[in-house]
């Protein structure tokens, strides 16, 4: 346990991603595989089902610390984290034992699930008495929930790849599915034989260049196929040897995050690989990308979320059929075969990307203008005779994207988010220039990384000019690129415009506030009424 707690402390003691990875690399090299397996499990964000109700933990801790219940609550309020509150309040004892992590988990933690309340209570008190300050905190975290120390599954895999000297893709594959945190499973991560990885390996994605020239320069329109370009997650769905794998373009195995697509793919014949777009889709229409984000990065998918944000694969290419690599067949051939396969699979979660009826470049231009209404982000143009290439190649595939609405704006106000841990400023109001003054025009919440949010929060606290309740008026210093879906005139807004679904695209640390956009620039984007 002590070695794991040291790892936890090292990760927690730095804001640098590389330092976090280095700490994990050292740990994975040194630790007993039986312990390392559990470390992989927990650092990847997995955790046991809630074993003990929070209320009970509070009661037992209150009794053990001798602090009156109302004072315990005050402490919890000040700390904001139950595991930490308990660790800070328990009487200090010199920790004697150094029981290995896997023993703590397998012999002490997991059995809690089947114990009576009295047994659970005795077990928790015993654990608290055996552990010291930081160990207690980590133990309490294991009992109460996720670590939140700025480590993702991705980083864990990167560290494993470095520590074990195995390709990251192979690690990703070996960790996928029903990986169990055992010593044997951890040792298997570094097995030299990598044939298992081949079965799940996707093809390199073929990418299109952005269209720069006039359509007419592409020659005869009849040689081209046109489809909507969707703003989802590019993915390959593989069905091989009775197993299904979904790979995102980021080379991440995401099979478990899209159970509806994976379930549908189980009905594809072995030796099939589809290329397409994972899209949030309901009532025959795409949902905004922000909805899809709710499904990403979440390990457990609740029934509500699955119902709220159903995901489909809009398939637009076929890379493998009957176990054969068909990337050198023509696009026309691949699409025809793709349509047949999907017809046989007959699942709403596997949709064929509709081919647009185009006979001339004017038809293409007309379709382009309808893209926004379709919820698409533009058009894809592919030559009927094109093969599925490698990497990015000019000439056979083009993407023609809508100009997204975006604007550089200055942060004017900030206020804390919600929930128990409302200690960070996460809701921001932005303004653009109007005759030398900044007028607020949009509020946005998402789009920044945790590190950026913390950094910004620290800055906000130091640069508050005025406070109105929870709202802080901050120095107009930071510029952000905001994206939005639409813009209309509005009498209700001070700025005279209202934007739809504003979100932060990035923090423009390279821009000064005077370089932000003006209200005129915003008005110029306005849709004709």
């Amino acid at each position, binding site marked *: 346990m002590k070695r794991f707690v040291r790892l936890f402390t090292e990760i927690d003691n730095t*804001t640098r991603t590389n330092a976090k990875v280095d700490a994990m690399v050292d740990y994975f090299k040194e630790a007993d595989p039986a312990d390392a397996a559990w470390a992989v499990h927990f650092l990847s964000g997995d955790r046991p089902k809630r074993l003990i109700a929070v209320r009970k933990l509070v009661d037992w801790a209150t009794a053990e610390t001798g*602090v009156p219940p109302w004072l315990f609550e005050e402490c919890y309020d*000040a700390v904001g984290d139950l595991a*930490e509150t308990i660790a800070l309040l328990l009487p200090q004892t010199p920790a004697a034992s150094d029981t290995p992590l896997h023993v703590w988990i397998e012999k002490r933690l997991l059995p809690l699930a089947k114990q009576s309340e009295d047994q659970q209570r005795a077990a928790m008190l015993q654990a608290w008495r055996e552990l010291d300050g930081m160990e207690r905190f980590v133990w309490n975290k294991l009992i109460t929930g996720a670590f939140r120390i700025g480590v993702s599954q991705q980083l864990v895999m990167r560290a494993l790849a470095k520590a074990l000297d195995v390709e990251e893709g192979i690690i990703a594959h070996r960790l996928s599915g029903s990986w169990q945190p055992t010593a044997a499973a951890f040792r298997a991560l570094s097995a030299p034989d990598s044939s298992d990885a081949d079965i799940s390996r996707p093809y390199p994605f073929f990418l299109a260049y952005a269209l720069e020239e006039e359509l007419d320069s592409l020659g005869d329109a009849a040689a081209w196929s046109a489809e909507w370009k969707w703003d989802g997650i590019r993915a390959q769905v593989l069905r091989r040897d009775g197993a299904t794998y979904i790979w995102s373009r980021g080379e991440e195995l995401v099979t478990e995050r899209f159970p509806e697509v994976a379930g549908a793919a189980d009905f594809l014949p072995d030796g099939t690989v589809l290329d397409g777009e994972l899209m949030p889709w309901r009532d025959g229409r795409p949902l905004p990308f922000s909805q899809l984000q709710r499904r990403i990065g979440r390990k457990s998918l609740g029934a509500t979320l699955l119902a709220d944000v159903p995901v489909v694969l809009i398939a637009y290419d076929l890379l493998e059929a009957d176990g054969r690599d068909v990337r050198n067949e023509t696009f026309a051939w691949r699409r025809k075969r793709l349509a047949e396969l999907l017809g046989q699979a007959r699942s709403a979660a596997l949709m064929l990307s509709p081919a647009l009826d185009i006979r001339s470049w004017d038809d293409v231009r007309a379709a382009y203008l309808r893209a926004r209404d379709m919820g698409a982000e533009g058009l894809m143009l592919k030559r009927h005779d094109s093969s599925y290439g490698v990497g990015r190649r000019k000439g056979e595939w083009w993407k023609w994207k809508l100009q997204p609405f975006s604007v550089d704006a200055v942060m004017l106000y900030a206020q804390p988010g919600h929930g128990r*841990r409302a*200690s960070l400023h996460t809701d921001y109001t932005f303004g653009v220039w109007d005759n030398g003054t900044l007028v607020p025009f949009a509020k946005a919440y998402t789009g920044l990384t945790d590190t950026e949010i913390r*950094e910004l929060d*620290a800055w906000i606290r*130091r640069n*508050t000019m005025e406070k109105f309740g929870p709202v802080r008026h901050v120095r107009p210093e930071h510029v952000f690129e905001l994206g939005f879906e639409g813009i209309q005139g509005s009498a209700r807004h001070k700025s005279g415009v209202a934007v739809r679904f504003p979100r932060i695209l990035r923090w423009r640390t390279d821009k000064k506030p005077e370089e932000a956009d003006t209200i005129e620039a915003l008005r110029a984007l306005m849709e004709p009424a």
Partner: protein
Amino acid sequence: MTLLQLNEHGLYCRTGDFYIDPWGAVDRAIITHAHGDHARWGSRSYAGARDGERVLRTRLGATADITSLSWGETIIMNGVRVSLHPAGHILGSAQIRVEYRGEVWVVSGDYKTEIDPTCAPFEPLRCNVFITESTFGLPIYRWKSRQALFQEIIDWWRANRDAGRASVLFAYALGKAQRILAGLITADVGPIYTHGAVERLTRDYRDAGIALPPTTHATTMPRGHNFAGALILAPPSAGGTTWLRRFGEQSHAFASGWMQIRGTRRSRALDRGFALSDHADWPSLLETVRETGAEQVWVTHGYREQLVRFLEGNGISAQAVASRWEGELEGDVAIADEELAA
């Protein structure tokens, strides 16, 4: 009418006609210590501890009328006997003992009971009414031993030095910075550079005879100087400013009692937090209240409602009294950096 009472200027003794740590300009002010939330500028005359004369003058200006008193020296104002006794918070920090017709009141100011080589040690005083601070008046605040904390600071610096980084340690410029310096005097840590605010007050400490390791004002170094491996002491307000750029690759840490809570450190994007405080922690607050033998406890500054409720629950008569210049708690610690020398 009580011997001390709160009015619109702060804590007032009517019989003796003086204020203790008044919130604004008054005729006669007795000052517990030189932090900005206790020593306000503009009063006609001040009295404070001799040990803290230099730092108090730095705070109040060269022309301020300051009377310095030795520890335990009594002055009598209209029959009210006033004396100053060490509070152990920073150099020259005093508890103020007020006695009239056999009734004794003690105003703690800010205090800690731990040993600190930069100031006289806290001295418990018997009294009828004790007015205590409660900055860290929750049981989650129990300080680690200072040996352990200094070892953490030294280990952090050494790891940074070995990695070729500068170690920027944020600490309040008056008191905390010098306590850290004193704690490092035998530790072979350095070179040590300072921010201007820290350097000026460090000079005051040296002038008052406190032994501190050598420091260099960072701004006096030539442009392009390599600070890798150095320790830099800066006030928290220097965080996020361009002043830090000169230090190249650097790690940031903050020495403050608020660092006891992980979320406070994380929300400031610090690498490390050292819960090294110049205030009494929960056990010392309770212990001190007990030692005074006071029948009445007034609680000010910080978690006063909580401490009052706890004392009342343990049979000690207590009440909360307002303090004007307290900083916001926890999350807002950054705002109050200069005022709240925690």
